[in-house]
């Protein structure tokens, strides 16, 4: 089911001051896709999710789920959460501690007064789906964190909802388990025809899990796109910086032709082939991801987008080195292969492919 959000505002009152949590949010979440709301803490992503599910009431605007208006200020409509027919996985899992695994998963079906045999069949099916068969009669609190997380997922899937909402469901797992669960979750969700709205502040989670990402900042949605387009073709400095490691170099547009622009930066002129609809003289930022800066030892030949610098520091991060290289007064973060034989203090040549340089508006 498609979710449409129009002109949504939500305020909080703190010490007599009015603080906007969401301002003028416009969003369409397409049906049967994994849609992620990504942003730093306090950006309003969880508030938006809670507005969709009905645990918070917005101050103005309209929310439509499928063909039903669940909230509208003008039409004075409010459908309470229990009537919206959604499912949700909570950050704390919200597993009821006084019930067994079976009862937790069966609860949404029991609420609807489905026949007992039907409930039993559906719960068994769902538990098999999340690989928790045989755990039916365990007390829910006697499970590990990862298992509890799967009980929460099973409970959300059991009523076969059209829409399922996730509020940072992986943030309580340790790093390794989080990675595994992420892959599993992606597998589960793509198998089912289901609209998933996923809230996270973890960019890797967002990139690897989603079909679409909406990046939020200070109560507003700043950019929507597929993981690739957000990562490689972002229009905005905030998004480019938030979604991955990025070198952001300030500069001024020197010349712009179709398909190419030259930007004057403190490092010298840089040719950029991405997002170049800027007029000459305009203040912009050049964005280059560390993995697209090629580092070679020695001086090397001069050429377009070739710069010379010195290795300031070299940090081993496991699969590669993260090198900080100084070009004039500018410091660039680069990714250096362990085989490259480069040491701290070395003079190096940097080659930056113009097709990987984006011009961002400031």
């Amino acid at each position, binding site marked *: 089911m498609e979710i449409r959000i129009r002109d949504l505002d939500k305020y909080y009152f703190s010490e007599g001051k009015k603080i906007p949590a969401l301002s003028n949010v416009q969003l369409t979440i397409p049906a049967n896709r994994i849609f992620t709301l990504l942003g730093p803490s306090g950006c309003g992503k969880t508030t938006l999710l809670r507005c969709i599910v009905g645990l918070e009431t917005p101050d103005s605007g309209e929310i439509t789920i499928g063909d039903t208006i669940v909230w509208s200020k003008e039409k004075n409509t409010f459908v309470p959460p229990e009537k919206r027919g959604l499912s949700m996985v909570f950050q704390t*899992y919200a597993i009821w501690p*006084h019930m067994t695994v079976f009862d937790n998963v069966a609860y949404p079906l029991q609420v609807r007064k489905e026949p007992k045999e039907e409930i039993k069949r559906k719960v068994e099916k769902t538990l098999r789906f999340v690989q928790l068969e045989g755990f039916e009669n365990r007390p829910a609190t006697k499970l590990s964190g990862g298992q509890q997380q799967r009980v929460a997922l099973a409970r959300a899937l059991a009523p076969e909802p059209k829409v399922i909402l996730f509020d940072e469901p992986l943030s309580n797992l340790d790093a390794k388990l989080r990675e595994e669960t992420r892959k599993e979750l992606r597998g589960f969700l793509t198998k089912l025809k289901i609209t998933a709205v996923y809230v996270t502040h973890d960019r890797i989670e967002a990139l690897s899990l989603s079909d679409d990402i909406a990046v939020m900042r200070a109560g507003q949605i700043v950019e929507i796109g597929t993981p690739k387009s957000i990562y490689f073709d972002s229009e905005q400095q905030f998004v480019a910086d938030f979604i991955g490691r990025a070198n952001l170099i300030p500069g001024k547009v020197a010349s712009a032709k179709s398909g190419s622009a030259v930007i004057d930066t403190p490092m010298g002129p840089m040719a950029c082939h991405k997002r170049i609809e800027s007029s000459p003289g305009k203040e912009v930022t050049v964005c280059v991801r560390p993995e697209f800066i090629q580092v070679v030892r020695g001086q090397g030949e001069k050429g377009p987008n070739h710069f010379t610098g010195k290795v300031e520091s070299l940090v081993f991060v496991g699969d590669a080195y993260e090198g900080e290289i100084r070009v004039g007064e500018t410091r660039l973060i680069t990714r250096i292969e362990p085989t490259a034989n480069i040491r701290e203090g070395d003079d190096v040549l940097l080659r930056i492919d113009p097709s990987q340089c984006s011009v961002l508006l400031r």
Partner: protein
Amino acid sequence: MARLTPILIALVGFLTVCPVIMLLFGSFSQGLGAFGTFTLAKYIQAYTDPALVDILLNTVVFTVGSALVATALALFMAYLNTRTNIPFKTLFQIISIVPMMIPHILFAVSWAILLNPSNGLINLFLKQLLGLQQSPFNIYSLWGMILVEGLLDLPVAYLIIAPAMSSFDVSLEESSKVCGSSQFRTLTRITLPVLRPAILASMTLVAIRSIESFAVPSTLGMPGRIYLLSTHIYRVIATGFAADYGMAAAVGMSALSASITLIILYRYLTRESEKYVTISSRGYRPALIDLRRAKVPLFLSVALLSFVLIVVPVLVLLYSSLVPYTMVPSLKAFTMMSWKHWVAIAKDPISLLALKNSLFLGIAGAGLGVVLTLFIAYTIVKVRTAASGILESLSFLSFSFPGIVIGVGFMWFFVRTPLYSTIWALLIGYLATYLPYGIRPLTSAFVQIHRDLEESSRVFGAGTLYTLRRIIIPLLVPGIVAAWILMATMFIRELSVSVVLSRPGTEVMAVQILRFAEDGLWGKLSALGIVMILISTTLTALATAAGAKWTKVQKVQAG
């Protein structure tokens, strides 16, 4: 729910503030009939009484003494339990819980039966054995009272000291030992100073309980003409030609201000304690000290203590309910045993009425108390406004109010209403005095219910009532059961409010037991006392079983 807060504040405010205000006005009035005409006469009369000096001195010695006894014993036990390899550690758990089940008046009376100077069992035995003319022990003395009160308050002190002792960061001690200090030196120079806040908190709480205490001063102090503030108030209103509620109120003001000062001190100390007592989350278990040769004697002393605390009172009561008059256990005594006193109790209309009244107050009163505290705890934990803060402070303050003083305060109120001399007057007095006992288990139960547990139920399609039935109440059941048990057992045994508010027709068990004690009718007293213990234990067992069943039914029905 937020709309309920003002009503709750009004209710709790009435229960806590009303008796205090009435006490204050009463102390400036001429008498129950002349309320509101200002006079200082009662204060002058009360505070120029030459006997008052002794009374105050006795009160101070009794309060400080029992605080020292209880805290020292608690320290000794907590240290043995958490830091040494003493065997049978479950014994410590029993000591810290079970004595609370034995009504104070019965505990005190059982010691009177053993050690009173005229026919105390131990005294009689020693006189026969050693051919003494005089009784070697006299429990009707200040030291007797201090010892008994100290033993009674041991569980309270232990429940404060033991957690502090087990969360104590052992590395503080280890570093002292590394520096070459001996075990004893480490104990006195490091362990005790670091535990100081917990020790002070324990002493303060025991002191509050001793000021409130009426059972021990009335059964052990009054026969020896040793009066404390509480028994002095009792003497003013219950003995002599005319009850003087004005003077009782004037004296009560001192007891009340002392208690309030102490409870404020207690709150201050427990807040400070978080700074001192370092809680180590590293999960290292402290190395247990090997007691070696001291193991058996120390264990025997703890075993003796639990025997004295739990077994002796019940045995003494059982024995003396069966023998026709006080006699040292012997073959002759056993041949003379009969149900005489039990039959007498069963035929005594006042004892039966007291039994009926206490049962009603225990079962229905605690039920009402749980409903009220359920709402109060919800407001304190979940509503969290400035108003709910007032609620918390009010209920906390009333924790310190001495029952007999509250009783006198309510007396001034009830004589003006049709409630006077009805069982409802007792019920209101009980609720006012024991509300905090119910609030505690319920607030901690509410704290456990995370907001998400409620919200997820709603998201999955359950309405408010369904959520209440399937999620909130089942999670609250253990807290509700604990609160009900606490209040029911307190109400069954209630003495200090009752001695003021109980009138002919509204007698309760503890007051009837006090009457028997005053007349030295140990046999009847013991029979009624055993009945009281049986009722408390039965109610506790039933409530526990009901709670377990409720949760189980919930599970089966859901599955």
